[in-house]
């Protein structure tokens, strides 16, 4: 059977329902979650699957996100396949437990529907939440479309559970922009998902193996702590290959190609924007417009932010003259957004480095349009001409 035949390719779903649908097909052993906009409908939809008997998952409706991640940790350590979803303040409340999940090497899969952090309170999209968790030892995949969100969730299970990794995975999609808008996408039939993810194979000791008692979360003094963290770092180094391999396998069954990043019109580009998630779609339209005007511009869309594919990114940017990294979050370093500083650092080894600027955009759901991208491209082309950067770090999409 061809990939097309196994998939239904005209399914109109919102991003959150597509995620919930993927979760239904995965049918995890345990889901523990607490509601927060804009990820709430993931869990609402999943709860109705539970109520209808469409899945056999045990759902724990905990009293907070801190407990959601704690319960996920307990369940995963007990040998269950575990998933959850959250956003913003919810992810922030989990912060302590994110480190414990990765430190215990538990393959938990979580959807993060990106939303701004308080204060002021704002329920709309930016990446401050997941960027705040970027150093917690979780793999982070970012999704541009509903299709990608669905595909990333299915792949995340395989990535997390891979014997060389045992790392938790966060699948990010843009709050409201992707989570609540309906797109046509291809979804697999249940058996294809089941076949792709396989039966859960325990790669770590289980707390329920009472004949072989295991301790999780012991005290590690200075003579052993750093070794454990080093192992985590090494798993993260291995993750790049695992993510690539899983994507290749996924391509075989889906016909859809995924890698560490997507390059759009990059081969002969002079100027490029680097941007993640849904804003990449808007930027592609701007690229097309500029190309019609005969201007050589392109787009680089990282899909994987943790581990950070610095070699591949440097390679993709090595022939570009001027680059703008657009961050939907600031790190308040006064030096640029989190994606920017890592990309700038990735370029350091190049003999000939592009000029590079940091632009913060779209915080708290502020609209980012094709014209915003066009303006950036025009600025980049000017930088290419003059070789001069006026402002290294600046905000766009701001009322001034």
């Amino acid at each position, binding site marked *: 059977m061809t990939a097309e035949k196994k998939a239904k390719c005209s399914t109109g779903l919102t991003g959150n329902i597509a995620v919930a649908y993927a979760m239904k097909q995965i049918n995890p*052993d*345990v889901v*523990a979650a607490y509601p927060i906009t804009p990820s709430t409908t993931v869990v609402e939809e999943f709860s109705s699957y539970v109520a209808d008997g469409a899945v*056999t*998952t*045990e759902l*724990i*409706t*905990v*009293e*907070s996100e*801190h*407990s959601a991640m*704690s*319960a*996920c*940790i*307990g*369940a*995963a*350590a*007990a*040998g*269950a396949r*575990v998933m959850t979803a959250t956003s913003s303040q919810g992810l922030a409340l989990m912060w*302590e*437990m994110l480190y*414990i999940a990765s430190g*215990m090497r538990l393959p938990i899969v979580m959807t993060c529907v990106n939303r701004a952090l308080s204060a002021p309170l704002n329920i709309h999209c930016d990446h401050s939440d997941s960027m705040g968790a970027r150093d917690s030892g979780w793999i982070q995949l970012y999704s541009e479309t509903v299709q990608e969100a669905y595909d990333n969730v299915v792949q995340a299970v395989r990535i997390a559970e891979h014997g060389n990794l045992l790392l938790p995975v966060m699948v990010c999609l843009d709050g409201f922009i992707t989570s609540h808008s309906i797109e046509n996408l291809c979804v697999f039939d249940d058996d294809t998902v089941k076949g792709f993810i396989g039966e859960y194979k325990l790669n770590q000791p*289980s*707390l*329920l*193996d*009472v004949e072989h*008692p*295991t*301790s*999780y*979360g*012991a*005290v*590690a*003094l200075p003579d*052993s702590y750093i070794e454990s963290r080093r192992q985590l770092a090494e798993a993260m180094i291995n993750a790049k290959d695992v993510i690539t391999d899983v994507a290749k396998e996924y391509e075989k069954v889906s016909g859809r190609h995924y890698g560490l990043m997507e390059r759009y019109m990059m081969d002969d580009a002079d100027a490029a924007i680097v941007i993640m998630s849904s804003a990449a779609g808007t930027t592609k339209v701007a690229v097309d417009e500029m190309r019609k005007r005969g201007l050589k511009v392109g787009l680089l869309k990282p899909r994987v932010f943790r581990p950070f594919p610095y070699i591949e990114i440097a390679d993709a940017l090595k022939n570009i003259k001027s680059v703008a990294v657009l961050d939907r979050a600031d790190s308040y370093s006064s030096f640029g957004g989190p994606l920017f500083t890592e990309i700038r650092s990735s370029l350091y080894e190049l003999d000939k480095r592009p000029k590079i600027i940091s632009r913060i955009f779209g915080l708290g759901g502020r609209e980012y349009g094709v014209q915003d991208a066009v303006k950036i491209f025009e600025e980049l082309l000017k930088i290419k001409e003059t070789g001069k950067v006026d402002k290294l770090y600046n905000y766009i999409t701001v009322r001034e």
Partner: protein
Amino acid sequence: MATLKELTGKKELFAGGHRLCSGCGIPPIVRLILRSTEHPIVASTATGCLEVGTSIYPYTSWRIPWIHSAFENTAATISGIETAYRALKKRGRLPADKEIKFVAFGGDGGTYDIGLQALSGALERRHSFLYVCYDNGAYMNTGIQRSSSTPFGANTTTSPVGEVIPGKQEFRKDLTKIVIAHNVPYAAQASPHNWKDLNNKAQKALAINGPTFLNIISPCPLGWYTKPEESIEIAKVAVDTCFWPLYEVENSILKVNYKPKEKRAIEDWLKMQGRFKHLFLPNNKWMIDKFQEYINKEWERLLMLDGKQV
């Protein structure tokens, strides 16, 4: 109910060689709890003396599956484990007839204060587990800071006896009452000096399908400024003064398990401990009186509820 001989004949699941202080109330409590069921037990522990003193890698005192994930969430962690147990049974990945018991341990800090939300959530969701609070009345592991369980008047590092404030000024939170308000099938207070009563309660709690709770007074020589060899005696006096009444609530009926023939004065308990030394200065006598008055009222209240539905 098990005899002492039967209990001591059982396999020791909590190994010696741990790093808890000598005279600490925690080890006898944990040992007895782990002996109170025939079934295998999985335990989750909050951050605190118990965790730090028993799990310094590469050693462990736990001869059972054990997890410590953080300070405030031992109840949430056990919720996840217990749910996984049901999920895996349902899916045939664990034999249907395999019976495992789940216990969460927390100190008073990790239970009365920072962990109260997770505890309340887990009790409300009706997970099948026993929650054991070993209550030494302060944050001992971080150096004897006051908790909401710290007794009135106690000298701690965050409620020190100063020029104007003589120790802790509030009475302790009554957590057992709060737990009972969750309508759990079984909740009780116990003490390590009365092993029989404690064992009996743990057996009952562990046999029940649903959330159960034990609040156990746990003497701490370091934080109470007491002699290690007197710990068990001090626990007994806590019960005889009715500072720590032994009672249980089973299917909503409250039963006082021990009524001292003659209720001893709270002074008897206070004077055994360095943390209350300042109460015996003449100008602080009002504090002892106030303490006694409080205890009398609480004890009367408990006697009134004895045998009744709560």
